Structures are given as structure tokens and as C-alpha cells.
């Protein structure tokens, strides 16, 4: 089971990217099976409704963050998915308050499961969030295999260039791709991500 962890701040566009990524993988010639593990911080789900509406297999963990307080729920859910679906691909969508690298560490240490982190950074709010919560926002990029800098359509050129440089500095050498996830994302980016997860 190849595993991708999708992380990034609240409202950065994770679910929008996920819809495209899952569709890209399931449309491969060998029709690999994809299961999504959806984690939401509140007591009610929203993203799972969107994903299930797109005919994707979704398991949800609500009311707790699987990178920390809900780490046991993460392990339980991954084990259940593995035994019930035996999927080719697992995509874990973290909450916007999660540290993806903690999820990666837990999966590796407890289940021996390797994974790659796809980190999403919101270009339009980057400066604002770096003032409000700089350490947290930087830490969300830790261990990223690849970074998408989203909402380029809502960001002026100067702010986008600044965000790109700062995200690049925080990403430990991972490739950073500016995108507008409302438009089709270049398939080469998804291919690069999948190769990292192989």
C-alpha cells in the first residue's frame, strides 16, 4: 500500500488538490484502487461529503487530530483500511492543524509504513499566516516530498514571489510548484509525487 500524506494549513486547498490527485491515480491504465483517510478537526464532516460525492472510497476520523491526540485513531483506521480494502494507494488528508511529519513518523514507527508528504501552502495567505503563527506554518512543511503553492490566482505577483522564496526555504529542498488548484494541475507533478511514494 503506497501512502501519500496530504498536509497544509486550514483552507489551503487540500481537498481541492485531493480530488484531482485521486482522479489522476484511479484513471491510470491499471485502475489502481485508492482509499482516502479523511481527518477533520470538528465534530461534523464536510470534506468527506465532497469526496464521497465524487465516488471515492473514504474513511473518516472526526473530532481529533491524527498527528497528535488522535494518533491511535490513525493507526486503527489505517489497519482497518488495509485489511478491508487492500488498496494500492492510501491518501491521508490531515486536518489543517496537523503536523504531517508527525503522521509520517507514526506510520513508520508503529506500522512500518513508508509515505511521502504532499504539502500545500496557501500563497494568498502566506504572509498573514507567517505573522499569526510562523513556527506552526513552517513546521507544516517539514519533511515534505513535494510542495504545492496554491491560490496563485488570488495572489499578486510580488506576494507570490515572496511566498515562493519563503516556502522554498522551509521545505528542505523539496520541489515547490505554484498552482491554481481550481485549474487542472500538471500531471507531471502528480507523476513525480507517485514516483516518490513507490
Amino acid at each position, binding site marked *: 500500500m503506497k501512502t501519500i500524506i496530504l498536509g497544509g*494549513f*486550514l*483552507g489551503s486547498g487540500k481537498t481541492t488538490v485531493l480530488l484531482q490527485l485521486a482522479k489522476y491515480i484511479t484513471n491510470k491504465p491499471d485502475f489502481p484502487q485508492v482509499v482516502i483517510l479523511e481527518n*477533520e*478537526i*470538528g*465534530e*461534523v*464532516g*464536510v*470534506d468527506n*461529503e*465532497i469526496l464521497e460525492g465524487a465516488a471515492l472510497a473514504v474513511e473518516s476520523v472526526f*473530532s*481529533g*487530530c491524527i498527528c*497528535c*491526540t*488522535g*494518533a*491511535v*485513531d490513525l493507526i*486503527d483506521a489505517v489497519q482497518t483500511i488495509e485489511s478491508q480494502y487492500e488498496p494500492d494507494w492510501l491518501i491521508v488528508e490531515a*486536518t*489543517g*492543524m496537523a503536523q504531517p511529519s508527525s503522521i509520517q513518523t507514526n506510520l513508520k514507527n508503529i506500522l512500518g509504513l513508508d509515505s511521502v508528504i504532499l504539502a500545500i501552502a496557501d500563497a494568498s495567505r502566506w504572509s*498573514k*499566516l507567517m505573522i*499569526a*503563527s510562523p513556527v*506552526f506554518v513552517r513546521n507544516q512543511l517539514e519533511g515534505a516530498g513535494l510542495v504545492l503553492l496554491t491560490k496563485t490566482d488570488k495572489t499578486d505577483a510580488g506576494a507570490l514571489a515572496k511566498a515562493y522564496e519563503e516556502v522554498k526555504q522551509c521545505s528542505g529542498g523539496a520541489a515547490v510548484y505554484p498552482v491554481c488548484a481550481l485549474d487542472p494541475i500538471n500531471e507531471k507533478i502528480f507523476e513525480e509525487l507517485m514516483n516518490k511514494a513507490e
Partner: protein
Amino acid sequence: MEEINENGCCGHENHHDHDEHGCCGHDHHHHRHENIEITTHEDSVTASVKITFREDRDRAEVMLRSFMRAVAEETEALGGTIGHIKFFLKESRGSMFSMTDTEEIQKKDAAYTELRAEGVAIVLGLTPEQLEEIVAVHYPGAV
């Protein structure tokens, strides 16, 4: 919905890390509105909100948008940061099927279409009490 024990902790003792008080890492807060649940996690405060509309869809959308905008504006006015405010609006129309013999099955359609919105307002920099107050004040009046 999770149960809260006398220590104000949720019942997931086996599933969470615990602090020195034996509490899980996210806190629940007692509230006076049954459709609003307030929890905290790290620096964020989350209001989980359920709203039932008995309006037509256009009117319900207007009310939902107005509610979301009011929560966002007041969060910023109080110096908080909007994390994410998102809702899913579902439409359903129920029908009852009944029979009293082996022949006829009667069908009765509900008189109205129900619209149900469920979602969250996740913010930073506000207290749980502040967010609860904002959400309760602006909660749409339907039902």
C-alpha cells in the same frame, strides 16, 4: 456526539494522549445551544454547527452565506484569525410508506423539503467563549 465525564474530558481515554489531568488533547466546552459544539485543539477553536432550514434553497443559501460572513467578520473584529469556515448543505425530502394489509402500500410525501447545513468555523486567537458567542448570536433563525 462524545460524552463528557465529570472532569470535562471526553470518553476516548484509550485513543488519545493525556495531560497531567488525564484529559485528552482536545477540550469540549459546555454550551447552551444544542446545535453548536465548541472544541479546542492546539491554538485553534472550532465551532461545529448544525442548521436545519425550512426555506427554499435560494433563501437557505442566502441565510447560510450571511451567517458565515458574520462569523468571519466578527472573528477579525475581535482580533482573531479565520482558519476555515466551511459548510455542506444537503437537501432531502422524505416520504413515508405504510401498509395495513397484504395489498396496498400507501405513500405520503413530507410537506416540505428539508435543507440541512453542517459545518465548522475554525479560528485562531479567540477564546472558546468568544467563538461560541459569535456563532450563537448569528445562528440563522430557522427552526
